[in-house]
Every structure is written in C-alpha cells, then in structure tokens.
C-alpha cells in the first residue's frame, strides 16, 4: 500500500462509488492483455494459464463457500467432469472440426452444470455438515469411478486429445501457448465479470442471506433449499468452464482432476485468498500457483511451508489475504493509513527476516537428516556452505532469534499505531 494512496482524501472513493466497480475491471483487462509482453517465455505463460484456470475455479468455489456458506469437499468433480466432456468433444472428430475452440468452454460449463443439477437435487437440502459430507461422498465416488468407468474417464492414464483439430478461429489454430493464453484470459474476464454480476442479482443476495440465516430467509418467502440449489448449479457451471479451459490448455484430463486432493487444493486456495471478498479467491489462486510452481522449484519442502501458511492463516487471519488487505480500508478512509507505514516496517521486516532464518534452519535440519551421506554441501539463499559445521547454524539461529525478537519488541507499538489509525470509528479489526 503506497503512501500516495494513503494520503488521498476519502471522499473521492465514496463519491465515485458508481464508477468505481469499472476501474478494477479495466485495470485487470489491460493487465491480462499486456502480461505476455512482460513475461515472454513459455513457462511464464504456462504458469499464467494455470493461474487463470485456478482463478476461475476458485471464484466458482467461492460462490458456494463464501457466498452460499456451503463447504464442499468434492468440488473438483464438476470441473473435472466438465473437462472430460470437453476432451471427448475434442476427440469427436467431425463435430469438433466444425466447432471453433473458443466456444468449447460453454460445453464444459453445461456439463458441470448438469452434474451439479443431479447432485444438488439431493445434496442441497441441508447446509453444514450434511452438505459437506455428501459432497465428500459424491466426490470420492466419482473419483473412484474414474478408474472403473474407463469408457468415459480413460482409467488411470486419462483422456487426451489435440485442440488444434477444431475449426480455425479467425485463422488462429491455437498451436502456440500464447494463443491459448488469450483464449483463457478472455474466458477469465468473462467468467469473473459474470460471477461478480451474479453476486449482485437477487439470487446472489439471497445466497448471502441464506448463508447467514437460512431460517429468516425462509420467512422472507425464499426456500433456502432452492437458493442453495441455484448457487450450487451456478457454481457447477463455472467450475465446468474452468475444467474445459484445463482441457484446452493441457489437452489431457486424468483422475487427479477429480480426486479429493484437487478438491482440497481448491478449498485451500479459496480460503487462503479470503472467502469474504469477491477478489479473495483471485489473490489465493495467484499466490498458490506461484508457491506451487515457483517455490517448488526452489525447495523440496514447499508443501511444509504451504501447510504452515495455511494453518497460520486460518488461526490468525480467518479473512484470508483479502481480509488482511480490507482490514486497512477503515484506516484508508480515515486517511491515516500512512501512519502505519513505519511501524509496519519496524515489525514486519524483522519478522520476515526471522521467518527466512527459521526457514533456513528448517532446510538445514532437513538436509542433515535426509541428504545422502557425505553430501554436506548445501546451497541456501545463493550461498553454498557445509551443513555439518556450526557456523551456518549459528548464523541462522541468530537471524531467527534476532528477527523474531525485534518483532516481539516492536509489536506493541504496531498495535498501538493500528488502534490509533482506526480510532475515530472506534472499530479495530
């Protein structure tokens, strides 16, 4: 959060509240267009494609979790089955060769929706644990079926195809990653806008109402069950679109698109980003994809770090990243955000350094325990050293202790500054 933003008076934000929703969308659209010119290599585009697909899926998932209050442990199946269906369309020969590829996601969405209609018919009668458990059961069932029903799911090796056999779309055959990127980016914008608008419709509003108080909603004339059902179906539709884009991007679908791990990941992504705000899952998807693809290139222990981040998020920031950011809005409105800058720097910088030190310790312990005997050399933060000597351990411990020590010492000042920055409203957190 820059100082410049902080010093802006609060009025324009409120006065322009009708125009405001357009601005982030515009920025996002422009960004999506120019990103490939900044990151030109194919792996960056691959990562961005993955990110975009995850964003759509996470947003679809949040239609359930965030907006509808329904916790699903098997949502991967709607994306997965949608994707499998698209794979079969791609392999269908004649039909596909008369179909421009960019239209394909609609079919994925429809299939995802169709499955959601079937499952939702009995699973949305109740929210809470019953819904969660049915979603888990159905998820496990369909995932298990994927190796049994080979005709549709292709067994363990999955179903693959070639997207380029579709009808050329204004001469584009989608041979290159970059062409696929723009296809996905288009669908990302479209789905995100549609999902955002959906949350502003009577259905979207009532989904919130049913989430907060299903009984009251019933006494307003709405059947909680039908509201949940429609949310579920809509979510299934967008999940199916994500699945279709997956099919286009990777040209293969396998059991892992359906299994509980995938469902768990999307829950993790959404919650990490923050279920309370529309843009939360977007943040979550970006951060998660980066952690998964970039951090896993750097360290074997990425899953461990991710686990810690996740548990810490649930414990300390149940609003997720988005909640964390939005916590600052009151201070921003009061024009006092700038006052947090220095205390933040004083606390968070040492904390970050301490965390890096702790990570170094973890890496060293891991190296000593699991590296092959005789292999004592390890490289950490661009430094190569012998993990069996005392010096690096001393340095890492020192950095950790000092980092966290300073953090502890400066934390009260930060809390004070925080309260001060939020006082006039009398609302902290």
């Amino acid at each position, binding site marked *: 959060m820059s100082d410049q933003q902080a010093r802006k008076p609060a009025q324009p934000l409120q006065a322009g509240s009708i125009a405001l929703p357009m601005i982030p969308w515009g920025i996002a659209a422009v960004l999506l267009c120019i990103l490939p010119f900044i990151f030109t290599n194919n792996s960056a585009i691959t990562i961005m494609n993955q990110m975009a697909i995850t964003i759509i899926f996470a947003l679809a998932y949040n239609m359930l979790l965030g907006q509808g209050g329904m916790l699903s442990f098997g949502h991967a199946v709607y994306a997965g089955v949608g994707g499998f269906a698209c794979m079969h369309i791609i392999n269908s020969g004649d039909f596909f060769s008369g179909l421009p590829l960019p239209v394909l996601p609609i079919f994925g969405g429809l299939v995802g929706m169709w499955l959601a209609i079937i499952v939702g018919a009995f699973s949305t009668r109740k929210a809470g644990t019953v819904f969660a458990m049915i979603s888990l059961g159905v998820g496990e069932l369909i995932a298990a079926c994927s190796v049994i029903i080979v005709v549709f799911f292709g067994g363990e090796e999955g179903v693959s195809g070639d997207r380029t056999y579709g009808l050329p779309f204004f001469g584009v055959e989608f041979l290159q990653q970059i062409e696929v990127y723009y296809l996905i980016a288009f669908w990302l914008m479209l789905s995100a806008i549609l999902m955002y608008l959906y949350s502003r*419709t*009577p259905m979207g509003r009532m989904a919130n109402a049913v989430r907060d108080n299903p009984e009251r909603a*019933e*006494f307003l004339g709405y059947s909680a069950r039908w509201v949940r059902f429609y949310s579920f179906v809509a979510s299934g539709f967008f999940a199916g679109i994500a699945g279709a884009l997956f099919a286009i991007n990777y040209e293969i679908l396998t059991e892992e698109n359906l299994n509980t791990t995938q469902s768990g990941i999307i829950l993790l992504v959404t919650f990490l980003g923050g279920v309370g705000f529309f843009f939360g899952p977007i943040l979550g998807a970006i951060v998660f994809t980066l952690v998964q693809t970039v951090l896993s290139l750097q360290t074997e222990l990425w899953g461990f770090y991710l686990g810690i981040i996740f548990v810490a998020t649930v414990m300390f920031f149940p609003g997720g990243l988005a909640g964390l950011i939005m916590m600052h809005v009151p201070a921003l409105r009061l024009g006092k955000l700038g006052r947090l800058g220095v205390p933040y720097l004083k606390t968070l910088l040492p904390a970050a350094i301490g965390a890096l030190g702790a990570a170094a310790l973890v890496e060293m312990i891991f190296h000593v325990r699991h590296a092959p005997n005789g292999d004592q050399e390890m490289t950490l933060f661009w430094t190569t050293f012998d993990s069996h000597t005392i010096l690096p351990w001393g340095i890492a411990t020192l950095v950790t202790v000092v980092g966290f020590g300073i953090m502890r010492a400066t934390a009260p000042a930060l809390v004070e500054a925080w309260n001060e920055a939020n006082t006039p409203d009398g609302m902290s957190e």
Partner: protein
Amino acid sequence: MTAALELDGLKKSFGKTEIIRGVDLSIGTGERHAIIGPNGAGKSTLFNLITGRFAQSGGAIRLHGTDLAGKAPFEINRMGLSRSFQITNIFPKMTVFENVRCSLLWAMGYRYNFWSMVGRSRALTDGADEILEQINLTARRDLPAGVLSYAEQRALEIGITIAGGADVIMLDEPTAGMSHSETDYIVDLIRTVTEGKTLIMVEHDMGVVFGLADQISVLVYGEIIATGTPENVRANARVQEAYLGTALEDH
C-alpha cells in the same frame, strides 16, 4: 367474509407431552390481536405452528380460508403471512439496507432471478429506503446489521417482517428485553407500520398489549380460556384467576 387467520382444533404434542391442546381461534382481517398467557403456556409453539416451523399434530390452520397443512415456511410467507422472532433474527453480516432489500425481493417479484442487478432497480432501492425511513434507521443504512444496538435490531426485525408487504403480521414478543423508552418507541413504530394490516402478537408487557390490541386471547396450558376486547378479558374471572390478577395489579 373469511377470517384472516383461523385455527380449528389445533393440537401439538412433543413426544407424550401435549403442548397445544385444541386451540380454536378466528382472527378477522384488520384486527390487532394479542395472545397472552403465563410462561410455558405454548404461545411461541402456537406461533411456530402457524408459521410452518413445526408441523401440527392435529387440527387445521387456515390463512384467508386456505389450509396451511404441510406448507413450508416460505410457502406460507408467500401467501401473505410474515413473522418476527422472539430472539432477534436478522442477517448480521449484511448491511441494514441490504437486510431490508432482501426482504423486498420476493414480494417485488424477483423470485430466483439471476439476470437483473439489484442495484439497478430504482423500485427496490426506493422501497427499501422507504422502509428504513419508517423504522427510522436511515442513518444506519450502510452499517452491518450486527453492530446495531438491541432496540435498533428489533426495529430492523420489524422492518424486515413488514417489508414483504404481507397483510398478516405476526410479532413474537417485539419488546422483550427493552427499556421503557425503547418500548414506547417500538409500540409507536408497530402501530404505524401495521396500519391497515392484520396483526397478531405474543407479548408479556401488558402495557403494550392493552395499548395496541383490540382483541386479546388468553392461552393457558395449551388452551384458549378467553377471547375478547381488552375490557372483556380484563373482566373475565377465569382469566384473572389463572393469570391476569397479579399482572394487572402490577400495571
């Protein structure tokens, strides 16, 4: 003319315990009807039976002559009956305005609409603002409902209850837990917003009851022992014996 609400031998038992033991009651359109009775008489159960929260064990409930048996709460609501709750029952995370707007949606014919923006509808916004005006919460419009004071939340609850335009309004102890000034405020509020509608309320505060109601029924141990105008009920010996004696002296 059919009665707005008619109960005919209504019964309800939980296990072996019979809570409502054959209630017959007819409430005319436009009537303001209070149901009073000692604690445990079954007033809330009666409310829950009428609004479809519980299924009755016997007897019939008719709203404008239509039998309500087997109808879900939302169906009953769509037939023009709306209720408030004894324990404040609002949408705490949504803004005050949003609370009211949600309660307007069905009545305004939006049903399960997912193609029009709620923010775009002038009628919806104006309708909600009008109700906020009525319940004097315009200043709180954009706050999350959960942060309102208790009295404000109760007022909001009444706002939500009437917003849908139902012609039969049921209020479950609308003044429970309020101070005197707050009570007076709510009574006035109820009087204005239920103008021309059928009002059925459960209430402990006799001041409220005698101030608002033109008909009173007394429920004791699951049976109605008396129905009539406040004066009649006040004079009824059985009522005095069973319940009112002490309460009236207090008043």
